[in-house]
Each structure stands twice: as structure tokens, then as C-alpha cells.
């Protein structure tokens, strides 16, 4: 086949895209077809991690996934983290800790961190660093990003 119709849920919302070329990557589908520009494409070869989204809950480099593979699956992008105007605890922590400078890596960083906390609600610093090893930041030196994730871990463990 050269194209396929793709039915998926993005951030909980059902989408149907007809005639999706098999040459299209998931990040292109998210940006160009779903119009969600939060997900960035950096290196295009799985090194920088800024295109990270969750595919059925697992973090993937969406530049290395065929768009057609997302058929029947659930995608979470950075736009799906906040509710209305309420930031996700990770986003709130990134703001409060000053973890964002240029911001290009942040969508992928947030989703890599979310995948970690979903799986391991009380990660150590080493586990946090291992979880974001595939997300490059050229501004911050990572210290505040790690602190922000640690701070989010604390706020997310409090009963709400």
C-alpha cells in the first residue's frame, strides 16, 4: 500500500485522516494534519528527543514512527497535558523552577518525564536523568529540568 486511512485518538479526541501517505512520519501527521504545533521536530533521527510523544502510553520519537502505524492507537502530545487553563504539575514545576529557556526541547522533555512518573511515581535523580537521556537541551545544563521533575514528583504524590 502507498496510503492508508488512519483512525486514532490524539489527547483523548478521535481523529480520522484519509489517504495518509506511508511516507509520512507521526510528527508530520501531528503537526500538519492534526495542526498541533507543540510537538517539535529537531534532528529527525532519534537523537534529540524533542519530537517525543506518548504512543499508547510509551514514549517514542515521533520522527521515527510511520504515521500509519498510529492507526487504532492513542497519542498524547504536550497539548494534552494541561486541562483548560490548569497546567499539568510537571508544566507548573518547569515554570516555577525556571527549567525553560528557549523552550524547544520542553514538549519532549515533559512527555519523557510524564512517561517516567506514570511508570515509577518516586524516581531517584539517577532514574530521572536516565529517563531524559534521550532529550537534549542546549540551554539549561539540565540542572533545573531535573529539579523541576523532582518537584513535580513531590507535588504529584500529594493527595489532591
Amino acid at each position: 500500500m502507498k496510503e492508508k486511512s488512519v483512525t486514532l485518538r490524539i489527547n483523548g479526541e478521535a481523529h480520522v485522516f484519509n489517504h495518509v501517505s506511508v511516507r509520512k512520519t507521526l510528527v508530520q501527521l501531528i503537526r500538519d494534519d492534526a495542526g498541533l504545533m507543540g510537538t517539535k521536530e529537531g534532528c529527525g533521527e532519534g537523537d534529540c528527543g524533542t519530537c517525543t510523544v506518548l504512543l499508547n502510553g510509551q514514549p517514542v520519537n515521533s520522527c521515527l514512527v510511520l504515521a500509519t502505524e498510529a492507526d487504532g492507537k492513542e497519542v498524547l502530545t504536550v497539548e494534552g497535558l494541561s486541562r483548560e487553563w490548569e497546567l499539568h504539575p510537571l508544566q507548573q514545576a518547569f515554570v516555577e523552577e525556571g527549567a525553560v529557556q528557549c523552550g524547544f526541547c520542553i514538549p519532549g522533555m515533559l512527555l519523557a518525564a510524564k512517561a517516567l512518573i506514570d511508570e515509577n511515581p518516586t524516581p531517584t535523580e539517577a532514574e530521572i536523568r536516565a529517563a531524559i537521556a534521550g532529550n537534549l537541551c542546549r540551554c539549561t545544563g539540565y540542572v533545573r529540568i531535573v529539579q523541576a521533575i523532582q518537584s513535580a514528583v513531590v507535588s504529584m504524590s500529594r493527595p489532591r
Partner: protein
Amino acid sequence: MLPEFELFEPRDLQEAVALLTELGERARPLAGGTDLMVEMREGRTRPEYLVDIKGLEELKGVTASGGLIVIGALTTLRVLERSAIIRDRLPILYDAVSQMGSVQIRGRGTIGGNLCNAHASADGTAALLALGARLRLQGPKGSREIAVEDFFSSTHKTVLSAGEVLTHIHLSTGSYGSGGAYSKYTVRKAMEPALVGVGVFLKTEQAGAVCRAARIALATTGPRPERALRAEETLRGQRLSEELFARAGEAAAGEANVGSNWRAPEDYARHLIEVLLPEVARRAWERVGHEGRNIS
């Protein structure tokens, strides 16, 4: 957009083998895609057809029965990293896969893809070489089983014939008194292929004091992952000690097929082998007792 190609999504192994046989050289099987899609984007390979085998559930997972562990070729590196069977019974393989790429890459990349791409720097492959893995291949004319060291024909090339698919990896956990470890030297702490990788698997007797047999594998040094046979010979039958490990390191540094390796100049690569091998051998030795307890 990726370059032009046509996609097939076979439902089972039989269909995948039939498609790959029919399409021949113009087709590539697509597993995790962490290498293939990058090569396609960069124009280094231009397959006319991709046969996406990701959906073949029969090629996924880790099972243990008796002393045999079977790993499906499509098992992701992340699944291996998180498998209690691998962590407890084959920690050398855990060492290798947990140091590869990122969580994102490990979640997609498969152990079969690591073998079939035949990169010299493949950590997983080096660990499987030290473990003496056997590979199950399925082709149009039936299946066959070969030793992992017979799988590579030259740089980035395997002995897979037209239509043949790597389906499973068979490993024996060995007897009581064996232990293995893998480590690689990199400049960065993550997301980097090895400048040099070393895997050591030891079988011992007399409560771990004497080496009965050793298998040592080197990654990145030559055109493909290779064994260091003279270093293995240095250890065999000898009382294990720091001095012996140092001698094995020297032997491996001398015999390694280090060529014009772009990742490290030859002298440096040999130095790294000499320094890294004793460290890895010591860790393998420390694990002898621990691993033994988990083996029935």
C-alpha cells in the same frame, strides 16, 4: 517525508517470509525502524518495499524453560531491560541493552534488528556473542539454527538469504558457577555508541576460583563484533585473579582486529580494551555466585 516506497503489513511469519522472498533485494523488513528509517531519511538506503514485521506477535517476548531462554527477535530492548528473566539470569545482556540509546529508542529498537543491522558497535550483539547465543532463522525452504558468530558475513552484512527472517534467539543460562558482564567506553554518559565495548562470560569451578571456560566479545573494534580468542585462552584453566585479568586485557588488546575505526584511533582503541577488559572480567567474576543461585 520519507523517500518513495510501498508498505506491506504481513499478519504472520509465513506471509512475511513469502513477501520477502517474492520482493527480494528491493525489500527490507521493518522492525523498530530506529536504524532503517534514519538510513532512509539520509538516502543511504532506498528500498522500494518495506515489509513491516512489527505486528508478528509470535516473534516477541522472553520465555525460560529449564536452562533455556528464548527471546523473540522482535522483542524490544526496553522489554529486555525490564525483564526479570534477563536481569536475574542473563545480567550481561541487561548490561548491554540498558546502555543502548534512550528510553525512546529502546522502546522501539529490537534485539533482532540489532543483530540484523550487523553494526560493529552493537552492544546487544556483543553480549549475545559472549553468551554463545544460537539464532533461529526461518526462510521459504524451512528453518535452520546457527551460532551467532556465524551470522555475520562482513561489515553490515549477515548470512540471511533471500526471504529469510531471524525469528528467535536461544540462550543457555549455563551451569552453576557462571557469570557475565558487559561494559562500553563512551565519552558521553548516554546516547552514544561504544568507542570500545567488552563482554565477558566466565564458567568456573572450585567455587569460582578456577576458570573452566571463558567467552570474550569485543564491540566496535573491528568490522563486526568479534571474539577475543587469545584472551579467552589466557583465562581457561587458570586460577582467577586481578593479574590474570590484566594479562587477558593485554592479549585482547593485541589480537583485536582494530582497523581504521573512525570512533577511536587504533592505539587508543587497544588501550581502551586493555583497561576495560579486566574491569568487566572482575564484574563477571563477582556475579558468578549470584548468577549461579538463580540457575536450577
